[in-house]
């Protein structure tokens, strides 16, 4: 076997000479090796998510109950439809990318331009969808109460979760949001929740139809346990605060670590999509001004294509581990 040594007399030394170890060009090979290392990074994150999930396997939020929104369908219970749509958008932008690569092999500048454009549009729609998903998750949909030991309790009626606003009677507020206008001008506090703990507890007592749902999953039905009214009152006696929506510290859907991992992993993936869009735009303009036409090949399109497909590949796994299993 012959050793692969960069030979300065042949080709450009910066590109590894004219040698092509394993039949791949320098740039393409390095893109692949970057993808390997990035794949290991994402595996690390998802494996950490797996560790945490198995650690709290009996209290982990059920994804169908968390992601139920669909655009222009207010109040509809649409688990997973939206994220399935996002998956299709990303797969489709992968197809247009591979068509762009294909057109590049045939030196068809017009078609490369067209398909690159579609790919960029697909990526932008995906990132926008991701932002919308985050918005819904951050704002929350029902509201919950956190107990003194950190557990989250939610409210149900006839076995279905209901929002705090559906049954809680609010009284005029004594607490005022601490904004820059009414306190120290250089700081502001968190917004007050719509209801106080006392209002929630009083309304729970006044509404015999309302039940309390705890985080624990019943192994027999694989659903969150709804406790009896008497037990519910005992839980509510431990109330610490009203929680609306999700952030890095607390999460109305249950375990705060679910929110932490969701924000971190989908955020990191979304950042990859964003970088991919930026790279695609750069290549898109290079295609338009004819850089690759003059170079004689469209390998650059192939290289960003690899990255773009990798982003799609990661999403396939994120979709499985956050929404399906």
């Amino acid at each position, binding site marked *: 076997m012959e050793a692969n040594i960069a030979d300065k007399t042949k080709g450009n030394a910066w590109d590894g000479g004219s040698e092509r170890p394993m039949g791949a060009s320098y740039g393409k090979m390095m893109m692949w090796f970057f993808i390997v290392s990035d*794949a290991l990074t994402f595996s690390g994150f998802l494996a950490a998510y*797996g560790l945490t999930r198995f650690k709290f396997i009996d209290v982990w939020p059920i994804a169908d109950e968390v992601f139920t929104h669909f655009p222009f369908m207010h109040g509809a219970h649409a688990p997973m439809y939206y994220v399935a749509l996002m*998956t299709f958008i990303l797969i489709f932008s992968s197809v247009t990318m591979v068509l762009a690569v294909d057109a590049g092999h045939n030196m068809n500048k017009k078609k490369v331009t067209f398909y690159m454009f579609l790919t960029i549009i697909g990526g932008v729609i995906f990132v926008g969808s991701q932002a919308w998903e985050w918005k819904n998750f951050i704002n929350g949909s029902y509201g919950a109460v956190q107990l003194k030991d950190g557990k989250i309790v939610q409210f149900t009626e006839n076995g279905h979760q209901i929002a705090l606003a559906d049954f809680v009677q609010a009284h005029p507020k004594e607490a005022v949001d601490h904004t820059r206008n009414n306190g120290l001008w250089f700081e502001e506090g968190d917004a007050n929740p719509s209801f106080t703990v006392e209002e929630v507890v009083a309304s729970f007592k006044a509404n015999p139809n309302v039940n309390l749902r705890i985080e624990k999953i019943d192994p027999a039905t694989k659903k969150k346990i709804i406790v009896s009214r008497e037990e519910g009152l005992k839980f509510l006696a431990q109330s610490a605060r009203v929680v609306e929506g999700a952030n890095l510290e607390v999460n109305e859907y249950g375990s705060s670590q679910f929110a932490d991992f969701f924000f971190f992993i989908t955020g990191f993936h979304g950042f990859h999509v964003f970088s991919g869009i930026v790279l695609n735009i750069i290549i898109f303009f290079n295609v338009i001004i004819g850089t690759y036409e003059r170079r004689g090949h469209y390998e650059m399109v192939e290289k960003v294509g690899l990255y773009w497909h990798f982003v799609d590949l990661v999403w396939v796994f994120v979709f499985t581990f956050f929404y*399906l299993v």
Partner: protein
Amino acid sequence: MGNDAAAHKALIWKVFGILSVITIVEVGLGIVKPEVLFMNNFVGTSLLNWIFLILTLVKAYYIVWYFMHLGDEKKSFKYSIVLPLIILIPYLAALLIIEGGYVYETLAPYINWNY
């Protein structure tokens, strides 16, 4: 050459079809959650979850092999990409998930659900 290009295009659309069908099946199963598959435990999780995992790996194969054209590369190159991943990722995942299960068994009895 022209014929080759047409065949390649057909292959791209075929792979797109396969990926779409798999995604539809996954979403359908995820919404319906058939009792036979969901209400059981097979090696640590439900059969349904194993199906999701396998379908995901099938999708990953099609993306890497046909969209990223790894199938067209030299054998040595294919293995230098794929082998590290298929050795290291299952290894890490298995260790961490086993550890997670152990921590759960150890700590869960100490969590109070009666007030």
